[in-house]
C-alpha cells in the first residue's frame, strides 16, 4: 500500500511537496532487513539517526509530509529532511530568539506577546545582573529581545534574556524610538542567512540598528525618522522584489 503511493525522498529534494505525500527512506535505515543486521553495501551508509524536521512526521517506514513547501536535505551527521514552507503565523520553538511586547506585569513575571497562541512569560530575574534588590526597569509596552527556554505545545512558553552562561549576549530590553513591524517568517530566515545581500546593500545606504525576531518581527532604528521609514519600506518590499528590482530601488535612493 505505502510502496505504490510513496516516492523516494531523495528524488523529491528541492521540489514542491504537498500534505499527504509519503516519502520513502532508503533501505539502509530499515533496521529489520530480513534478519541481516550488518550489510556490506557499495555506498557508504551514513551512520547516526535521521532527523525529521518541520513539516514532516514519521509514519511507518517513511515520512508523511504535513505542510506544503520545498523539501530540503542536509547530508551531514545522519542526514536531516525538512520542508521549507512560508507562513505568517509563528509557533514558539525552544531556542528561537524573538521580539516580544510586554503586555502585563503579574507579580514577579512579565507577560509578553510573541505572536503565538499564548502569551509567553519572562521572570524578572532572567536578565543579566538582575537580583531581588536590583530589578530591571521594564514597563508595559516595552520591546524585549529574548530566547525561548520552554516552548512546546503542552505548556505556556517561557522566555529568558540571558544565555546558558548568564551573559545577555545582545538580549534584553530594546531601546527607545525605532520602528517595529511584522513580515513573513520566510523573509526573516532569508535575512538571517549568513552573508545576506539585502542587509549588506542596505548598510551601504544609511547606518542603522536592526533586530530580527524569529516570530516575524523586525525592529529598525536609523538616525532620522525618514531614513527609518525608508528602510522599513525596503525590507517589507523585499519579500516580493527580485534582486535586480531591489538594486534599482537602492540605486535610486542613494542617488538622491
Amino acid at each position: 500500500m505505502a510502496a505504490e503511493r510513496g516516492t523516494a525522498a531523495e528524488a523529491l529534494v528541492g521540489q514542491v511537496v504537498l500534505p499527504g505525500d509519503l516519502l520513502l527512506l532508503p533501505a539502509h535505515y530499515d533496521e529489520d532487513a530480513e534478519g541481516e543486521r550488518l550489510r556490506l553495501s557499495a555506498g557508504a551508509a551514513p551512520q547516526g539517526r535521521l532527523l525529521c524536521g518541520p513539516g514532516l512526521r514519521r509514519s511507518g517506514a517513511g515520512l508523511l509530509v504535513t505542510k506544503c513547501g520545498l523539501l530540503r536535505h542536509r547530508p551531514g551527521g545522519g542526514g536531516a529532511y525538512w520542508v521549507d514552507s512560508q507562513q505568517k503565523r509563528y509557533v514558539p520553538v525552544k531556542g528561537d530568539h524573538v521580539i516580544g511586547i510586554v503586555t502585563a506585569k503579574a507579580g514577579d513575571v512579565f507577560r509578553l506577546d510573541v505572536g503565538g497562541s499564548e502569551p509567553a512569560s519572562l521572570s524578572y530575574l532572567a536578565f543579566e545582573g538582575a537580583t531581588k534588590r536590583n530589578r530591571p526597569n521594564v514597563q508595559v509596552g516595552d520591546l524585549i529581545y529574548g530566547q525561548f527556554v520552554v516552548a512546546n505545545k503542552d505548556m505556556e512558553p517561557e522566555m529568558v534574556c540571558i544565555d546558558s552562561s548568564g551573559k545577555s549576549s545582545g538580549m534584553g530590553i530594546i531601546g527607545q524610538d525605532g520602528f517595529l513591524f511584522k513580515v513573513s517568517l520566510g523573509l526573516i530566515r532569508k535575512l538571517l542567512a549568513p552573508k545576506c545581500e539585502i542587509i549588506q546593500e542596505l548598510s551601504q545606504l544609511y547606518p542603522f540598528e536592526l533586530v530580527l525576531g524569529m516570530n516575524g518581527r523586525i525592529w529598525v532604528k536609523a538616525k532620522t525618522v525618514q531614513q527609518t521609514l525608508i528602510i522599513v519600506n525596503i525590507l517589507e518590499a523585499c519579500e516580493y522584489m527580485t534582486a535586480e528590482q531591489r538594486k534599482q530601488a537602492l540605486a535610486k535612493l542613494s542617488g538622491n
Partner: protein
Amino acid sequence: GVLERSREQLLRQTCEAVVLGVLHPRTAISLVLQVLSDAGSLLSCCLNAACMALLDAGLPLSALFCGVTCALQPDGTILLDPTARQEQEARAILTFAIASSERKVLMATTKGSCSVEEMQQCLAAAQRAADTIFQFYRDSVRRRYSK
C-alpha cells in the same frame, strides 16, 4: 440561516478530519469564507477554498481534500460541477469531499433522491475528477514557490 449552519458543520467535519489537531492543543482555528459570487456548486467551491486556505496558512495537515458536486439529471446522466440552472433542473445533487490519500471519502451530502447504484456511480466519477483538482493544487503551490 439553517442552510449556512449546515454548510458550516459539513466544512468543519471535513477540516477536523485532516487537520492535525494534536500539534495545537487548546487552540482555536477559525476559518472564514466569504461568498463573492455563487454560480452553482457552492459547497464544493467552499471545500476547495478551505483546503487552499489551510495550505497557505501552514497548518499541519495529514492529507489534502477537495469538493466535487454531481448533479443527477432526470434521464440518469451524471453532470459534474453543475451551474445553478442545472442544479435546479436536476433530480438529485450529491456533494463529496474526497481526501488525497487513496481518494477516501471524507464527507457526502445529498439533496434529492437517487438509488444506491447511482450514488456509487457518482462517487466513482467524483473520485476521478478529484485528480484534476489535486493537480491544480500542486501547480498553484509550485507557482508560489517558484518566485
